[in-house]
């Protein structure tokens, strides 16, 4: 059954797995002064894995006896994963170096997590799904507590680990109910089983557990309270990764479970998803409004973004035509990619202002940045405008995508909720611009960390944010094919 041909569609995953070994081995043999080489090695390896994505594009079939499905949707998510990985790998080194944290271990753990995200995106069976999820989040727990001697990092890591395990357990409980009720762990088998007849109360219980578990991972309100502490404690560039990587994974999980397996009974979970979306965006925004620490503000705002993405899932469920349903999925995919790029970069800018290790990313660090570091400030302005959703940036187009999907699906009230929330969010994002350009620098301004890798990644991110915002056309076809590949 498992012939060698089954391995070929796994090319990106295989490259990632090999890359982990290469990085660990290289870390052993490189002298301390040469450790920086680990970053180029990692990035080159990730780029190779990225190149493998177009090669396996269009495979669209399951391998390993139905446990693993390489479709265009999964390939798109893998591509997005690798983009996030490259940016994280470039942003982290100088921050880690100034705190004497080991680069080799960071890179290896990061790649493990990326591999988990790829497996999660491709899983077509509850078992593989759980495997991918754990491979993604276990390294993430380690990364959150990566700063071993910092008690905030320890606290964040521990909270993340405990609550994350708790969520995994709930999810696992939900999958066991689902298995018990449908007699199969294959997602397609579950889809067939649930589409027969009425939805039993027991199945609703199962859906309930799955929803709680999955939205826990995605950090939706009211299952979000682990995020701010975990995000604030972690080293800042790692926070950037944690705020988008595992989130991408969580949405891969949501798509796989709720679209692939529970798609036929979407009417049963539509209302819950829509309400969760509104709660999440509003809750995240309101708490973010009160934050005076930019890192924490970005953490809460990432919750709000989860809400917007969930609205895409609600649009999928509410739509009546295949095209409109596919549109909801496309909105999720585009948002996850765009959000990934802008949020990793925004956290990285916060990190660049933490060269002085006693700084925690307060608003004061940003005071007068426009005069002190014009290019860094201008980049941050573009990222913040993108997070707010002002054209011509990727953040705007991503919100537009979700809005079109929700209006198209006939749930205009959700679109109105998104619009009002975006205006609310403008308040706290623009406040950072106020500090950068409209206030004088502090007496003792934060030193700026402008490493070549970090600057390169920031340049790439800003270019990507503008490019995807002005000319999104070139990814739209890819998105369309990705979304249609699961119908």
């Amino acid at each position, binding site marked *: 059954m498992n012939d060698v041909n089954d391995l070929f569609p796994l090319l990106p995953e295989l490259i990632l797995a090999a890359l982990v070994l290469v990085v660990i081995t290289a870390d052993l043999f490189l002298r301390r002064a040469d450790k920086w080489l680990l970053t180029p090695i990692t990035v080159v390896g990730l780029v190779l894995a990225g190149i493998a994505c177009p090669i396996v594009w269009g495979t669209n079939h399951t391998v390993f006896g139905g446990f693993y499905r390489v479709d265009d949707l999964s390939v798109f998510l893998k591509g997005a994963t690798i983009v996030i990985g490259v940016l994280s790998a470039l942003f982290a080194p100088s921050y880690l170096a100034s705190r004497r944290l080991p680069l080799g271990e960071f890179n290896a753990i990061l790649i493990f997590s990326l591999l988990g995200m790829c497996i999660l995106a491709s899983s077509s069976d509850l078992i593989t799904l759980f495997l991918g999820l754990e491979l993604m989040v276990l390294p993430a727990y380690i990364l959150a507590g990566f700063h071993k001697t910092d008690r905030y990092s320890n606290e964040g890591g521990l909270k993340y680990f405990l609550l994350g395990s708790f969520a995994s357990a709930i999810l696992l409980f939900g999958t066991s109910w689902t298995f018990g009720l449908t007699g199969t762990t294959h997602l397609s088998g579950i889809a067939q089983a649930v589409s027969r007849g009425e939805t039993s109360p027991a199945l609703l219980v199962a859906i309930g557990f799955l929803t709680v578990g999955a939205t826990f991972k995605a950090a939706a309100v009211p299952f979000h309270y682990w995020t701010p502490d975990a995000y604030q404690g972690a080293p800042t560039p790692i926070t950037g990764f944690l705020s988008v990587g595992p989130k991408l994974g969580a949405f891969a999980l949501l798509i796989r479970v709720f679209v692939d397996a529970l798609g036929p009974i979407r009417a049963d979970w539509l209302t819950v998803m829509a309400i969760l979306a509104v709660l999440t965006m509003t809750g995240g925004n309101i708490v973010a409004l009160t934050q005076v620490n930019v890192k924490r503000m970005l953490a809460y705002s990432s919750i709000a973004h989860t809400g917007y993405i969930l609205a895409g899932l609600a649009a999928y469920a509410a739509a009546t035509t295949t095209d409109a349903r596919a549109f909801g999925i496309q909105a999720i995919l585009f948002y996850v990619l765009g959000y990934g790029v802008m949020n990793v970069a925004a956290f990285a800018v916060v990190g660049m202002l933490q060269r002085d290790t006693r700084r925690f990313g307060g608003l004061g660090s940003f005071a007068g940045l426009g005069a002190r570091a014009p290019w860094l400030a201008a980049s941050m302005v573009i990222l913040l405008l993108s997070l707010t959703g002002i*054209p011509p940036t990727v953040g705007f187009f991503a919100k537009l995508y979700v*809005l*079109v999907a929700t209006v198209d699906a006939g749930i205009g009230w959700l679109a*109105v909720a998104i619009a009002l929330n*975006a205006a609310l969010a*403008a308040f706290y994002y623009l406040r950072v611009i*106020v500090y950068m350009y*409209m206030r004088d620098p502090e007496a003792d301004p934060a030193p700026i960390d402008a490493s070549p890798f970090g600057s390169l990644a920031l340049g790439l991110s800003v270019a990507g944010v503008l490019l995807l915002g002005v000319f999104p056309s070139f990814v739209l*076809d890819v998105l369309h094919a990705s979304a249609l590949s699961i119908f």
Partner: protein
Amino acid sequence: MQPPILTLVVFTPLIGVLVLLAIPGHNQRAIRWVALLAALTSLGFSLALTGYRPDGPEFQFRESLDWIPAFGMGYRLGVDGLSVVLVILTTVLSVVSIFYSWDPIQTRVKEYYATMLLLMVGMLGVFVSLDLFLFYVFWEISLIPMYLIIGIWGGPRRIYATVKFVIYTLVGSLLMLVAILAVAIAHGNASGQFTFDYLVLRGFSYTDNLQALAFIAFFLAFAIKVPMWPLHTWLPDAHVEAPTAGSIILAGVLLKLGGYGFLRYSLPLLPDASKSFAPIVIGLAIVAILYGALVSMVQPDLKKLIAYSSVSHMGYVMLGAFVFNVQGLEGAVFQMISHGITTGALFLLVGVIYERTHDRLIAHMGGLNAKLPRYAAIFGLFTFASIGLPGLSGFIGEFLVVLGAFRFNAWVAAATMLVVIFSAVYMLWMFQRVFFTVPSGWMRRFWPSLKDMSRNEWLAVAPLVVLVVALGVFPGPVLHALDAPMQRIVEIVNGSSGLTSFQLPW
């Protein structure tokens, strides 16, 4: 093939921005010249639009390119008479404010001019877009530069003012985005062609429910921008804190984006809803006209007085737009242009005295006529233009609006006519307190060093003097250009049946 005039008009300032980025920040002279040249070039291109033929096709100088075909979004540009006059108003006022900033702006010069030019791109883009999505993009692009201009180069409470301005505007515009999408999707679902092309969407008849909701969303966006009572509260704050050039652009052009939005989008796209909601809008407009005038009377600050008078004047625009006859509509547009010139000039002149005394309180002035006769003369000219003295541009707009209102309802016309008296009261009383009477103790401290208007200030205000007189004496060409577009709006709205199935709660 024609040269792409509209693209040149809109994007020349952007080229200016790119050039500015390459100039080192300390070379202020070069920066000012580049910014002025970019704005002047754009003005030059915009003058080519005077080649617009009123008897030609509805939209001229058209350009059309695919942008995001999957979403039916295109780079579609075109102008009719309405757009032409507003584009020229924008380029003229931009040049004036960039030129005026020569001396007053001394900090972060490079950033200042880059934001001014970006603002120009956004405003011009709004007036020439023939695609709802493109329109929205330009609409939002015009927001951020003004946010920065007030927030960075503004007065002491600038941060409060600018954040208020942005949040107000964003709430309206994001709801408008939802309405734009709803309109495009409704059309797409019915016809199978998903597009944001204005000309396609305009001809479609939307359901009453959609029209009513979309009208409310558009109304919020545009009414906040106009600004209409009771959504005007951001305006006085923004004006008081904005630097002079920012005030000129804010009053001169940004408020017109709202009026333009009503005429270009609300009325033709949603005629039934417009017809049914018209009484409410007219009611609000009358309140705005009255309220603005009454509140202006008691303002201690010159800028605040002019800001509140804008609320009153823009009320005329709204009134003219919603009485649905050609006189009213043409009056509304003319009033927008005239208000842009007059108020722009008044803010500039307030800036002139502010540069000398760093104060704008009317109580701190007095007797300036004796010391600054030429300044007083120019200020007087625009005071009269603002009141609506015949022979100056303000008269034409107000007269036409009142005429249109009279055809709609004589009592409405009578009420608005009364307000003209109020406007004479607050403007002339202000003029008297500033230029006649005896100089205040405060002013006496500056008395020896007070100088009349400098050459640069003369040069900045000169084009506005020419325009305010020329438009007052020869309104014909502008009105002629507006005939066909306004006639079309009247036909569309009056040909509609109003909302029938949508139950209004009143």
